């Protein structure tokens, strides 16, 4: 049987989205999520696909976006975990960087340690900066620790020794001894999970990995069984935080790599639809009810950071660089004691939500402001009639009167202040990281994103906004088009001038052989593998490094010189200065291996007409003016349709605002493209 059907299933808070891709295009389905046991929702999604006519036996690819690891970390529902570390470093993972979470809040609370102090054990051993043994590994000590762990209720064990990224012998020996002494739980070694310099971050990431392993093992085990029982022959793959997918087996070993699984899939999906329209440099903006996620995509690939944060914890594995701020449609507007208009961080969320939802909300929100400005339909909202007078009264009382404004100006101000917050977030991922937003396209999705995007684009000098056709399932779509990605990094701090090209080649070759084998096992033959080599370099004495690509194949001294030259160039470009005469230092050797996936064709059958008529006309405030404004039905806009602002485009998932002077058109994959 031909297995050419691809299935993507993304679990969200309310809905589990299913995208089916076959030769004819894509089909989208939604089923309710089952937060208590998310795998049930996923399997419901598979059933829904079967009900819609998919023969499960034809499914050759199954990708999944999950928040199981994220929720377990944020809600502290991780497994009982033990940590074995170097003598003298028992508390280092709890001390962290010795900072407090807030400079001025005398009542701030520190993050809770992943591993309780009475489950953190020390073994006498010590390595030096090049991995040399300073103090031998104490076998007796190690056995005593192993026996204590065996008798405890720890389900999982992390092992993290100082400088283990230079020499993993002691960690491996510790793992052997744990097994010999009868510890049969999961093991995570820092030299495998994150072989990179900085003991706190490495130990923390290894501990998080250990604490999540039993959780993901159970979850993915149930899911794999269920998918197989449904008759699907494909093995389960899982979206990783770095924007690639990996097998369930690999994910069980490294659950710490899935902390941004869902959001990364969304960025992937957004990058893909923008790419279909011809835009490869993209800023993404996913604005929902309580928060707004922004990120940057360069040459079609989401920018990946190793300085990410999840909840209270720095998680220094490669993750799509997503910056989250507390600005959503439900963010509450208020006037502070100094007479300034503020929006958020408090949010009405989805329940009770904005006043206009009619679920009992009483605080004016960003969505309520849009309603009063005529940008969203004052007649109905979620099929309920809207009490516009109640919204108007709340804005008057909470915002307009205290500021001495009329209600419309207050509503306009609420949107402007929300925009200022989001503009700052977009600047963090672009300008602050050295990217000029004027060369980027802003892709806006989430229920509230398209209401704000065009105005934000004007402020940032972004030349166009793309509102994707199927914004509600971008994450599930992202699952279907993401390559399998494995990232490896090994720290080896030494002067670049002393690096032997032959030895470096050998180290890359070894990493490459390992990852090639993993990709092979995931169904990617060598013809569909792409390997990228890179090194992180810095000036000697500098503590920040920059990534520079390294050519494939056997390296010579000339290649190493060229790499150093590229480092100087990049330093100059990013920081405005470079000093080629100063010694350069190697920090980390990196390899990125991807298994290439052929993206499914997006449907070109969109319906609608080229020359649409507005569905209605209503008074709306867009920019500084209020006027009768045409309101278009998104589904009536066919490819090549164009219209001029000011206008409002209402879709099933969101409403887009087209400012005066801008025009909007529908591209041939069905996205609305707004250009000032």
């Amino acid at each position, binding site marked *: 049987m031909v297995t050419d059907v691809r299935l993507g299933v993304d679990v969200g808070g309310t809905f589990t989205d299913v995208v089916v891709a076959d030769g004819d295009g894509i089909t989208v389905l939604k089923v309710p999520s089952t937060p208590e046991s998310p795998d049930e929702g996923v399997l419901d999604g598979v059933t829904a696909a079967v009900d819609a006519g998919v023969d499960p036996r034809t499914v050759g690819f199954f990708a999944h976006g999950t928040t199981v690891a994220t929720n377990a970390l944020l809600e502290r529902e991780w497994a009982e975990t033990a940590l074995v570390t170097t003598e003298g470093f028992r508390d280092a993972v709890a001390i962290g960087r010795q900072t407090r979470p807030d400079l001025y809040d005398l009542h701030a609370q520190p993050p809770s340690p992943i591993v309780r102090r009475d489950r953190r054990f020390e073994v006498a051993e010590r390595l030096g900066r090049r991995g040399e043994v300073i103090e031998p590994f104490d076998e007796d000590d190690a056995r005593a620790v192993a026996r204590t762990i065996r008798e405890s209720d720890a389900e999982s064990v992390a092992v993290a020794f100082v400088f283990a990224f230079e020499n993993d012998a002691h960690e491996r020996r510790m793992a052997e001894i744990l097994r010999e002494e009868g510890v049969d739980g999961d093991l995570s070694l820092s030299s495998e999970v994150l072989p990179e310099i900085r003991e706190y971050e490495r130990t923390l990431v290894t501990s998080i990995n250990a604490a999540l392993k039993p959780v993901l093992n159970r979850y993915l085990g149930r899911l794999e069984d269920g998918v197989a029982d449904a008759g699907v022959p494909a093995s389960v793959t899982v979206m990783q935080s770095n924007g690639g997918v990996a097998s369930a087996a690999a994910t069980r070993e490294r659950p710490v790599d899935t902390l941004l699984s869902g959001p990364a899939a969304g960025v992937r999906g957004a990058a893909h639809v923008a790419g279909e329209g011809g835009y490869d440099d993209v800023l993404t903006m996913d604005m929902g009810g309580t928060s707004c996620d922004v990120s940057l995509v360069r040459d079609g690939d989401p920018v990946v950071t190793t300085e990410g944060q999840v909840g209270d914890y720095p998680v220094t594995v490669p993750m799509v660089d997503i910056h989250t701020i507390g600005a959503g449609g439900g963010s509450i507007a208020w006037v502070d004691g100094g007479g300034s*208009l503020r929006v958020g961080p408090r949010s009405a969320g989805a329940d009770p939500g904005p006043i206009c939802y009619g679920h009992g909300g009483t605080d004016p929100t960003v969505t309520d402001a849009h309603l009063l400005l005529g940008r969203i339909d004052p007649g109905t909202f979620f099929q309920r009639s809207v009490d516009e007078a109640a919204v108007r009264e709340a804005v008057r009382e909470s915002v307009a009167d205290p500021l001495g404004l009329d209600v419309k100006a207050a509503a306009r101000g609420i949107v402007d202040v929300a925009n200022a917050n989001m503009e700052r977030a977009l600047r963090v991922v672009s300008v602050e990281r050295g990217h000029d937003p004027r060369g980027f396209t802003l892709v806006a999705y989430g229920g509230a994103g398209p209401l704000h995007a065009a105005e934000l684009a004007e402020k940032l000098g972004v030349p166009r906004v793309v509102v994707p056709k199927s914004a509600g399932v971008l994450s599930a779509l992202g699952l279907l088009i993401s390559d399998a990605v494995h990232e490896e990094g090994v720290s080896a701090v030494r002067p670049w001038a002393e690096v032997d090209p032959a030895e470096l080649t050998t180290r890359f070759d070894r990493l490459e052989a390992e990852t090639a084998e993993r990709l092979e096992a995931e169904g990617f033959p060598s013809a569909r593998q792409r390997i990228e080599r890179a090194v992180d370099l810095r000036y000697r004495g500098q*503590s920040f490094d920059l990534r520079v690509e390294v050519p494939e194949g056997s390296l010579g001294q000339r290649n190493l010189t060229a790499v150093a030259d590229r480092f100087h160039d990049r330093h100059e470009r990013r920081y405005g200065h470079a000093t080629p005469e100063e010694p350069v230092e190697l920090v980390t050797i990196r390899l990125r291996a991807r298994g290439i996936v052929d993206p499914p064709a997006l449907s070109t059958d969109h319906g609608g007409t080229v020359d649409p008529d507005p569905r209605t006309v209503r008074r709306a405030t867009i920019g500084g003016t209020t006027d009768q404004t045409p309101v278009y039905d998104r589904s009536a806009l066919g490819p090549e349709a164009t219209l001029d602002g000011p206008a409002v485009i209402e879709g099933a998932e969101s409403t887009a605002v087209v400012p005066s002077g801008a025009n909007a058109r529908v591209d041939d994959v069905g996205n609305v493209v707004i250009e000032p």
Partner: protein
Amino acid sequence: MSETGNGIDPVTLEVLRNACIAVAEEMNATLVRTGYSPNIKDRRDCSCALFDVVNGEKGAELISQAENIPVHLGAMPYSVTAAIEAFPPSSLSPGDAILLNDPFHGGAHLPDMTLVTPVFVDDELVAVAANRAHHADVGGAQAGSVAADSTDIYQEGLRVPPVKLYDGGNPVEDVFDLLLTNVRTPEERRGDFRAQRAANRTAVDRLRELVARRGLDTVRAATTEIKAYAERRIRAEIQKLSDGTVRFEDYLDDDGLGHEDLRIAVAVTVDGDRVVVDFEGTSDEVAGPINAPLAVTASATYHAVRCVTDPDVPPNAGTYRPVEIRAPAGSIVNAQPPSAVVGGNLEVSQRVVDALLGAFGLEAPERAVAAGQGTMNSVTFGGADREGEPFAFYETVGGGFGGRAGADGMDGVHVHMSNTRNTPAEVLETTYPLRIRRYEYRPESGGAGEFRGGLGLRRDIEVLTDDVVFSLLADRRRHRPYGVAGGDPGSAGADRLVRANGDETGIAGKATHDLNAGDVVSVRTPGGGGFGDPTDRDAAAVARDLRLGTLSAAVARAVYGHDVDSDG
């Protein structure tokens, strides 16, 4: 639309206030990323801010800041004012930058170098960008320039009055030569200076864009209104405090040269929407380096006021207007030249906060917090590395935060005026001939209480080469962090030196020692004070501390009246 003042409506105010904070944060991102030394990149001992020039080019006022190190930020306006007094911006050109560190010209202590750059748009001065970074060596008698035994500022390092470091965008090579000739690690310093310049250039670029978008008049009016707004908010907050005068005293151990029990006396008077802080009765300045220039005292005072009001009030010049500081000239809170001052910024500032929070706690018991470790535990190693190159390593060590109503103090953190990060052992050992032997909590060091004080830290550092000079500048080795509401004081710090041959001795809080390969310094920092009567402590919390090994059975029984056997 209505206006809040200065011709700025409330929406524009909030939008431009965000924009100004974004500029400072972006400066900070640049500084941390381009910094050379671990002290800037890893420990983030640096701060960035925007100012506007007022009062006929005689003063500079803070508009916005990136929040890193409290002690920098309250003090930076003094530096920027000193810079523009020496170089009125109208006499400057685009691309100029002024460097200074002189504590008697607006600086804090010599290692903190401040770089001030005027921002011009079409020949009009819009603002001044400034950043301050702690350099790991600025010359003087001891590597690291945090000597515990200096008796005047000349021994503490190179004193830099306001000088032009960049002229029209070009480095002033003579000044660079002078600076770099006088420090032990010139290449690292050059790199850090460049990073400081890159940070200010970021501000220039962003402010130009902002002016292009909003117009010069709007931006200028907004910066004025941003300050007025903060002033309105802080006055409303102060109004909520009860009127009257409260007094409090706390002590620094000594100046390292035999002058002990240095008193910080405060009288805090709340009068409607203003606060007067009077330091009358504070000890006279001392020979050792435990003297604070007024800028540092002001910084600590502003910090305390922010902590006891709403931290959401944005910090800028307006926030500080309702706060009047009276500090007797010649006392340790208003030191005069040529006092040694390096410990003013590091230690006196902490005790000023302790005294003020003590006073505010009397004024409003529900806001009271027990004293935290009250010191920064500055540790410096200087010598030659394995290749014979000179090195200077500086770091500070966290300790206990005070117990608060409803929560134990945080364990092992920097308190109040500091928030610098530690240096990872692996980074430190890769860069310097040093090795971390132990880094852990000090069990039972937090003062007992219903909510116990946070735990101090123990950090053992071994030196790997001979002829290394070690210096410790720390306090709360005798005068323990106070408890409140019946809580016990935290443990004093108690540092040790273990020689390669096994000989072990205690070391003083302010001490300098010559070390050789194999010698180990064990820095043991104070715990925070406790909050509330220990016998009111929740039995489950006592049991937890027992289980975690941060409390012994003997103390659980004696202090908390805890029946250990009942835990099974």
